[in-house]
């Protein structure tokens, strides 16, 4: 795979009257972890849904794994997995059955399911119906769903959300495992200090625009990574007069 996993050029996406993404440009090298931060409504989730080809951009271009998100959606989808706000699960099915459905549609055998359930700590509740699951357990099952796809590019939207402290460790462990396997990981998060330990790059969004640091450039140094991240978050973004 080429050295650049994700490349985005002046991406824009509109929801009726509002431009959720106005002008986003960045590049993510392969096998790196990028942290995307920004207030609620900055466009983080929209960006991830565009990269995962769930929605089409209205303007601009993006390639994921070398494939265009608009014209080569199938190929993009083969390589990516999205952990979205919605957990993509069937309430009336059990944890194992949900993963059975995913495995059948991926046309890979069902043998990997037990291992993945074990990895996310849901082996004990495998046969319980999802409607009895707590938000944290659903997030763990969504993680299992991502792992089952063995993606090259992983899009994690708020991976820490609704998880308990052991869950945080699980997320870190999964991200390190995926990175070790050469996968590229993009994650949106509000826990900046914690994610900064893992992230090689950071990207800050505000009102659909990239506001810092300069897109795709790695942070100054490993030691002051936390401080730099906090600093960029605090730095008052140049006032953008947005027309919409």
């Amino acid at each position, binding site marked *: 795979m080429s050295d650049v996993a994700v490349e985005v050029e002046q991406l824009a996406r509109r929801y009726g009257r509002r431009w959720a993404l106005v002008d986003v440009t960045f590049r993510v090298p392969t096998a790196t972890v990028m942290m995307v931060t920004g207030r609620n409504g900055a466009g983080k989730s929209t960006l991830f849904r565009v990269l*995962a*080809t*769930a*929605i*089409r951009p209205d303007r601009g271009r993006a390639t994921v794994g070398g494939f265009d998100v608009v014209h080569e*959606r*199938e190929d993009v*989808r*083969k390589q*990516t*997995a*999205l952990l*979205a706000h*919605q*957990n*993509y*699960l*069937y*309430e*009336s*099915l059990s944890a194992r*059955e949900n993963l059975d*459905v*995913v495995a*059948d*549609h*991926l*046309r890979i055998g069902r043998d990997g399911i037990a291992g993945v359930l074990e990895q996310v700590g849901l082996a004990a509740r495998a046969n319980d119906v999802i409607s009895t699951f707590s938000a944290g357990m659903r997030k763990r099952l969504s993680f299992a*769903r991502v792992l089952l*796809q063995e993606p090259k590019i992983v899009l994690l939207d708020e991976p820490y959300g609704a998880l308990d402290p052991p869950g945080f460790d699980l997320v870190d462990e999964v991200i390190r495992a995926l990175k070790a396997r050469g996968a590229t990981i993009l994650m949106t998060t509000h826990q900046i200090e914690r994610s900064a330990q893992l992230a090689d790059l950071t990207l800050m969004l505000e009102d659909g625009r990239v506001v810092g640091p300069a897109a795709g450039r790695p942070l100054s140094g490993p030691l002051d990574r936390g401080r730099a991240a906090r600093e960029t978050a605090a730095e008052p973004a140049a006032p953008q007069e947005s027309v919409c």
Partner: protein
Amino acid sequence: MLTAALRKELLLQWRSRSQMMAVFVFGAAALLLFSFAIGPNTEALRTFSAGFLWLGLLLSSTLTLAESFHAEMENRALEGLLLLPSNPHALYYGKAIANWLQLAVLGVALVPVMVVLYDAGTTQLLNLLLIIVLGTAGLSAPGTLYAAMTAQLKAKQMILPLLLFPLIVPALLASVKATSFAILGDPMGQATSWIVLLLAFDLIYWSLCGVLFRLVVEE
């Protein structure tokens, strides 16, 4: 890919089988109400029994069809499948076949109710079964497409019938005519032409809706 979709659909339907019982009761109640509307005149009831059967089936079908995408839209499970990736055509035909099966079972279950209430017995059971299978197929194909659309709306219970009822007029006409020939006798053998029309309707809409489904679910 289609087997995966079908296996999922049947599992989902098995889990919501209590819903199917409720829809059957709804259909049977509709048939009962029709007879009250006409009155105890068994001769009239018998001549219109085919029409009542299909009207009861059509009304109940909107319930099953409107609910058929509830599980897919609840946690955006359908989008989850599309992003795996899985083929939207397979997802459509999986869901359409599942809906068709459900409606056919409902239709067959309503036949005894019709026979009892309207004294509409028939010897041509196989013929009747064929008509029910083809007629419910005609309901399921466009119904599944419109269910996918309206499931994402607030007023889904209202919009689905508004879109579906005018569309399936040919299937309704053909089914009622063929069924009444099966029940009241078919001296000139006209039932076959109605069954051919029903088959044509099915073929057209099973292919057309399959092609258009992707546009309805992709953003």
